[in-house]
């Protein structure tokens, strides 16, 4: 079971990294989302894997899953939505403004050398 979770994290990370290195905004955003899954599962797994023991207190039960990583990951999931939304908005704005959805902003070949002077 541990092998499955660890390999899932690894595969999601690899996929996320590959998409992150693409040249257009949309795949990069998907890559970030994949990485987010990987990181969230990774953080969650830091409480180690427990099957069938949710951290809901019951009178006759003493074995519970670690609640702390769960609480941290819960907020992380919600925040990552906010982050994704902002990144998507920025990407969309850039595309609408310039009709170009490349992520790389390479300087013009003959960049003005005097730029930055006041």
């Amino acid at each position, binding site marked *: *079971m541990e092998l499955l979770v660890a390999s899932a*994290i690894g595969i999601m990370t690899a996929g996320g990294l590959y998409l992150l290195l693409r040249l257009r905004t949309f795949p990069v955003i998907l890559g970030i989302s994949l990485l987010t899954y990987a990181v969230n599962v990774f953080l969650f797994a830091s409480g*180690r894997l427990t099957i069938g023991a949710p951290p809901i207190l019951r009178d006759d039960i003493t074995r519970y899953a670690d609640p702390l990583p769960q609480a941290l990951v819960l907020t992380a999931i919600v925040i990552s939505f*906010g982050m994704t939304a902002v990144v998507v*908005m920025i990407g969309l704005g850039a595309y609408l403004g310039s009709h170009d959805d490349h992520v790389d902003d390479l300087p013009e070949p003959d960049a003005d050398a005097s730029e930055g002077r006041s």
Partner: protein
Amino acid sequence: MSLFFIVALPFFGALLPGLMNSAGRSACAGVTFTVSLAAFIGLLTNLPTVLAGEVVTAGVDWMPVLGLNFTLMLDGLGFFFALLILGIGLLIIAYARHYLSRDDNMGQFFTYLLLFQGAMVGIVLSDNILLLLIFWELTSLSSFLLIGYWKHLPEGRQGARMALTVTGMGGLAMIGGMLILGQIVGSYDLSVILQNRDLIQADPLYVPALILILLGCFTKSAQFPFHFWLPHAMAAPTPVSAYLHSATMVKAGIFLMARMWPVLSGTTEWFVIVTTAGLITMVLGAIIALFKHDLKALLAFSTVSHLGLITMLLGTGTAFGAMAAMFHILNHATFKAALFMSAGIVDHETHTRDIRRLGGLRTLMPITFVIVVLAALSMAGIPLLNGFLSKEMMLEEATHTVLFNSPWLVPALATFGSLFSAAYCFRLIGHTFFGPVRDDYPSKPHDPGFGLWGPPAFLVLLVVAIGVAPFLAEPFVKMVTASVLGGEAEVPKAYFKIWHGLVPALFMSAIAVVGGLVLLAVFNPALRLWDRAPRPEAKTIFEALVEAVASLARRLILPLHNGAFSRYAAIGSVAIVVLGFHAWSTGTVGPATRVMQDVTPVSVAGWAMLVAATIGMVFLHRNRFLSLILIGIVGLMVSIGFVFFSAPDLAMTQFTVEVVTIILLLLALNFLPKHTPVESTVLRRVRDTGIALFGGLATFGLAYHYLLRDAVTGPISEFHLANSYKGGGGTNVVNVILVDFRGFDTYGEIIVLGIAALLIYALTETLLGGPVRARLLNRTPDAARAGDAHPMMMVVLTRVIMPVVLMVGFYIFLRGHNEPGGGFIAGLIVSIGVVMQYMASGFSWTSARLRYPYHGVIGAGVLIAGLTGIGSWFVGKPFLTSDFTYVRIPPFNEFELATAALFDLGVFLAVVGAVMLSLESFSRLARRAHVPDNEHPMDIDPSRDDKPVPGTPAAQGGV
């Protein structure tokens, strides 16, 4: 009045002028004056204690770990400077009221001025050198604002930048020096440092500390070779020049030298550095001043020269030198501020400050003439005026000073400087006010109103009073000197007198005055000589230096930071993995302590789907819709994984977030291209695959490794499990952690979420307000639109289901404390319910039924959460302490009431608001894109028989 108030008053008062701006110029100046006056009176209430030789202190611990405490102290020296700052500040405020024109933003000016005043008072009252540094930097910043107050003038901007650069660099050096000093003594409190002269001077780091601190002082007080910024700062409005560049800020460096005098002075290093710098500055400043044609430039260089004089006196390291320095600070502040204000009057009335275009003003502006003559003669060192007394003391001290083994060097140079000093004073009087009346003044000169000449006249009264009756100032100056000396030396017995007998100083004075008159007589040939002589232009050198540094930075940064995001991401990923590998290979790896758990067929199936979807995304990502579906599968499998591994709350959150994320991405994809073209080379893709596999393998290794080992130390979760019910009153430990144990974190999170949503809203507004709007309106959809935008089945279904969704949300919210659920999840569920209405019935129909704006919902959420936290203050508990009780209302079972539930309500509202605001913003872009947006959700509606009026929301209501 407590010292705290004296320092705080200008800072808080700085809020007022801006508010009073619309109430008129007098009100604005009046409120500024009142604030300063209050601080001034507050200072005076401490006078009896200070006169008694005691030190007033006040302090609170701020960051004791760093040795940074908010401690203030008021002794003779601090009182003297605070008196100058606040007293002259009052005169300047009165003067500025009449000086600034109607076009100037007076509120802004006085706000800056008060900020500066507060920072200055802070410097002179600080007892902690770290606190002093903070105020020191504040004066640099506020003076930057003041010098550049006339933003439309390029000289103003350049002068402000130069002043900030020079004083800022000096400030940086001084921070280093002060930190060394604090390390040597082991305390950052001035009162402690000043007791440790021997310890400091014996330390090997004394010389570096001295040089660094002096760099700060010399840059601030415009000492050679940093004197060049001061004349350029004269682009500021004249009240600023009179205040900052004659009486206060430039004296901050001198103040610090005086403050540190007991511990730093007396060594050869101090004597040589300080005396030499002062002497050069004094002579150089005086020579340049004589040949300046701009009144303010002349005064600026004369200020440089006089600051050099004071520095030199402090450099000699004798008690008499210190006393002369203090006396001259007082005298210089009075006559120089008066002269600056008079220069401002001349400028104000004649519209020029160029001496070559003036002359003959004696009869046209008699009042100004009298003021200038008295102040300038005092500066030249004419008896019966206060400048004479301190200059005489300076010359007296010079005759006893032996620099570089030459008893003649200092007296000769001092006399030489005084000679030029006298010459420019005579030129100032002679070439501006005497001579024939001209007929080509840019504006017809006449004396201004009392508001302008009153303040300098008051200062000139002081000039004459001290000059005629020096014994008036003597006890005060001696008290100040005593606190400068700090017990390291006796206060000199010498009396302040006009007539000392035929001493060498008198002859030197006479030489200076006569020589000055002679020099003025041969001014024109001398000027021709001066103009022909080659001189380095400080401004050109400075600009070249700045440009050199900037181009170096460009050469260094641009090749590295070339805007290629994918390159940064690649370098970042590799660097993180390499660092992680380094940590891994240098640490110790324990044996596995956990047994691998058995694999079930179901979990393998879930794993296979997740892996297949991920790999599919990588290969099929060019088809964007398809990759969106695939990422949905990944999210779903992750949620199921959470359920499987005992995290029901996470599963619910992940699942609901998944839904809104996909909707969001769909909305975005509406505008973006639907396919990603092939652009990168094969080599590039191979490289990226390599990096991705490298990173994936590393994460896998790390995760697999720690999943088979227990934590090195026991996790703190045991505490949460044990106290969740007892302390938090809930059995769902995850929810109790969120709303109770770590409620402050959650509070921060909802604020961040709200900010993200507002950011999206703001970006949308910007897009819709700019050129993009036209493009959106004119765009033709790149795919065929649905024939039925709002299918009736869907409309009916979503409306029927809405109450159910709300009820589920309510239920999930209420049970959250004890069972899986809570504010986050409930918020997401309710958002999905509302989003369904948008999707089914259209934007306008839904917006028309929206009672509260989503910003308000976010705000209400944050407020409710915050107020719940504050509520615990009223029972004397720290922020966000929660409480709960069990109540029983007869027909129902006993149930629990917890303040945490109220907090969770805040979370709920913030989440609903944030999610909805983001999605709504996106759909607003879409809505503008294809304008004809039906007011009616359904094409067929039996309750409707009229056509909707364009522009009004559908008044018919729902079905």
